């Protein structure tokens, strides 16, 4: 199966660690991907607020490139890119919308475009818990983790097809399989406030603070994420949240790919752990030293 890979803009800067760890995990799991050549913006940030058609056209070009390259499916790590690529695929089914999108493009979009899915779901579909467990080099035993999926990964339900939109369990099952203790985290799909990061910073701080506070109260060692924006909000702006809430959280916010990568035997540098603002030193060293032992 030929799998096209759409990295998205965050991967080139703010979430370089996500990109590195994603590539490392895919490599180790033997999932071969081909990056879409000459990919462009997915249109999810400024464009989709201004013009749905422009945003869709941007996406459509990416879908078209993957289709012309003969890809059977497209995977992307970023939920925002995923959402927009999926929404555009759906819009293309409507002849009127397809026509308007084509007007904005030099070349009309291919009649059928490959299905887009998240890297996370692709891993779950292409492997089995048993194979991942057999490939693991290190255990996550003794780690208490919560997963924060963010608002986009599971919503809208009908489009994203991600199980229970209020209580997704995919990453929990994956990491529990490797020995981690996964805590029930009721805020796993709540809003982190990222979209108000500029216009209403206090709200962002409050929303992020709530998530961090609950994780702390539950006794989590880290909040595992799968969205570059959430990660930036919870990690880079943790300080702002602390100031606003008068707290002193130092909660590491690693990507699930970073934790999974460590378990699969990759080294912390290869996974971009040094890019995290709140250091995950304890978590990393626990995994590196632990190998089956407890805290």
């Amino acid at each position, binding site marked *: 199966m030929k799998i096209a890979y759409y990295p998205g803009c965050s991967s080139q800067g703010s979430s370089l660690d996500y990109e590195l760890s994603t590539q490392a995990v895919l490599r180790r799991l033997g999932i071969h991907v081909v990056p879409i050549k000459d990919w462009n913006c997915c249109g999810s940030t400024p464009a989709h607020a201004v013009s749905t058609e422009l945003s869709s056209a941007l996406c459509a070009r990416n879908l078209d490139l993957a289709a012309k390259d003969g890809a059977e499916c497209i995977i992307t790590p970023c939920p925002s890119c995923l959402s927009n690529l999926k929404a555009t695929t759906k819009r293309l089914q409507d002849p009127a919308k397809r026509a308007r999108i084509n007007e904005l493009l030099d070349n009309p979009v291919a009649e059928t475009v490959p299905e887009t899915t998240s890297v996370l779901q692709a891993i779950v579909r292409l492997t089995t818990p048993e194979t991942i467990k057999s490939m693991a080099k290190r255990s996550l035993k003794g780690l208490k983790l919560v997963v924060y999926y963010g608002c986009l990964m599971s919503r809208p339900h009908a489009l994203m097809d991600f199980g229970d939109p209020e209580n997704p369990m995919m990453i929990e099952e994956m990491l529990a399989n490797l020995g981690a203790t996964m805590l029930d985290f*009721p805020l796993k799909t709540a809003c982190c406030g990222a979209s108000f990061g500029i216009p209403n910073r206090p709200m962002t701080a409050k929303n992020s603070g709530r998530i961090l*506070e609950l994780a702390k109260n539950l006794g989590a060692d880290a909040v595992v994420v799968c969205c570059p924006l959430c990660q930036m909000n919870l990690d880079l702006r943790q300080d702002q949240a602390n100031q606003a809430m008068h707290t002193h959280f130092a909660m590491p916010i690693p990507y699930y790919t970073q934790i999974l990568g460590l378990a699969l035997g990759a080294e912390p540098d290869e996974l971009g752990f040094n890019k995290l603002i709140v250091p995950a030193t304890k978590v990393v060293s626990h995994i590196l030293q632990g190998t089956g032992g407890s805290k």
Partner: protein
Amino acid sequence: MRIGVFICHCGSNIGGTVDCAQVAKIAEGFPDVVYSTDPMYTCAEPGQAAIEAAIHEHKLDGVVVASCSPRMHEPTFRRTVARAGLNPYMFEMANIREHVSWIGKDVAANTHKAAELVKLAVAKLRQDHALTSQEFPVKRRVLVIGGGVAGIQAALDCADGGIPVVMVEREPTIGGKMAKLDKTFPTVDCSACILGPKMVDVAQHPNITLYANAEIEDISGYVGNFTVTIRKKTTYVDWSKCTGCGTCTEKCPAKKSFDRFNEGVANTTAITIAFPQAIPKKAVIDPKFCRQLTKGKCGVCAKVCPTGAINYEMKDELITEEVGSIVAATGYDLMDWTVYAEYGGGRYPDVITSLQYERLMNASGPTGGHIVRPSDGKEPKSVVFIQCVGSRDPSIGRPYCSGFCCMYTAKQAILTKDHIPDSQSYVFYMDIRSPGKMYDEFTRRAMEEYGTEYIRGRVSQVYPDGKGQMVVMGMDTLLGRPVEIRADLVVLAVGIEASKGAPALAEKLRISYDHYGFFMESHVKLKPVETNTAGVFLAGVCQGAKDIPASVAQGSAAAAKVLTLFAKDTLQSDPQIAKVDIARCVGCGKCIRTCPYGAIKETVVRNAEKAQVIETMCQGCGVCTSTCPQGAVQLSHATDNQILAEVNALCQA
């Protein structure tokens, strides 16, 4: 045949836009019409007297009245012609008011149309035959299905009226949902204190036979003559010996059995008596938890029972009862609220249903009436009530209002304050629906006297904060801003749905039920107790959401219907039913297959299979008549020839 025609002016209602005299004149030319006139008010006393006089004077053997809708006055005029000695079915009506004079102003067109409708009625009348009702005996016994407050009321009223009652209750005790409640709105009087005596009355009434822990297996027959098969589910306890002393429940070692009566807020023993005031007060073994029945060794209850009532080999038993009428009072169940993932989907122990909360508040409940949190047994100081959990929510397929949750939520908020004076209650609501007597005053008291904070809006999420409290995030739509409340306990006003198994019972009763399993009344406004199956009546929530007073009222109403039905020794059947021409019938059974009422059965006449209409069951729809290819089964008063006569009167190419 000698037909008289009466074209009613109905004052100016008809006469204003129809030339009635002209219609009467045209009618004189119709076949068999010997008398035709146009009275001012036919339905008035002089008008009716004129019809009677004309029947005698002109020796009429059939009458056509052209006036208002037959849905209005057909029964009136049938009685009129009957008084003059005619068979009431030798009468036809032409609707020249609702269908002519009121819907158009063109006098010529209206007059022409009215004359044609009279022609139609005359044509039909010429095909009419005298019909007579059959009388059949009635078994003056009633079956009440369900022993909740509605069923209890119906049973007691019938029994007091002298009718023997058979009551069937699915649970081991009667009392229904009301028996679980602590107090009742709007008086805040003790539920057990007002229901308990009625339950005792059921047990002691000489006219009531109670089958608890039993279900309806099968129902056959028809109004006046139903045969009911009842499955007495095994209790593993011989109730004729059990004295309800409770020794077995004290000694039973299986103490972690699910407590159905207490809605699972506490555990109970495998052998239980639901609650101290249970009727009948008899022990029942839950085979899912009993060690003797699951593992084959224990037998403690058998050893300690002073009367030797325990019987582990007991099996279900089928019994048959003959009754003349049935009251369905099967009540409701709470919907499965765990579909709401945003309220935790059942993951958090301190998010409970309102019915569970009733058990926590109830002095005879597992906590002795002390309100405590299920998670840690601590007294909650902050309680959040969320209304409309599974009501008025089309997104989960529950668009209807459950009716009484607004009221009991107010009651629970008041009682919370009574139990824990330093507590604060919050109620998230969509709209407060309190239209009953003293109801709105009651909700205001909850707000004003008891300081309950009412917040208009939905809750988006409930989650534990990790430090022992629940965080309730919602929207205050009046202030237009989000709210967040720390709660010790969250109580969900869970929406109701029809009792489990209601559709299956409806099939056995041959009554209709709606999309949600609630039984359909015969007419939403005018026949709210009757069903479309004669002799079957409805009481309580099985027909639709209603509170205790309304359930009791409908229970009494159902009893009144039963008593009315039984006021005579015999019933008269409607003669407008299907009849089989035995000679024409080839016994193919197509009518039997299509009859919506199972009112046609196969019989053997001179070695040949034939169809036979059960006269008391036939409701007169005529599906059989339009099914039978040889026209062997004909619906009286709407036969093929009668309808063909009408068609031919209008269409003669």
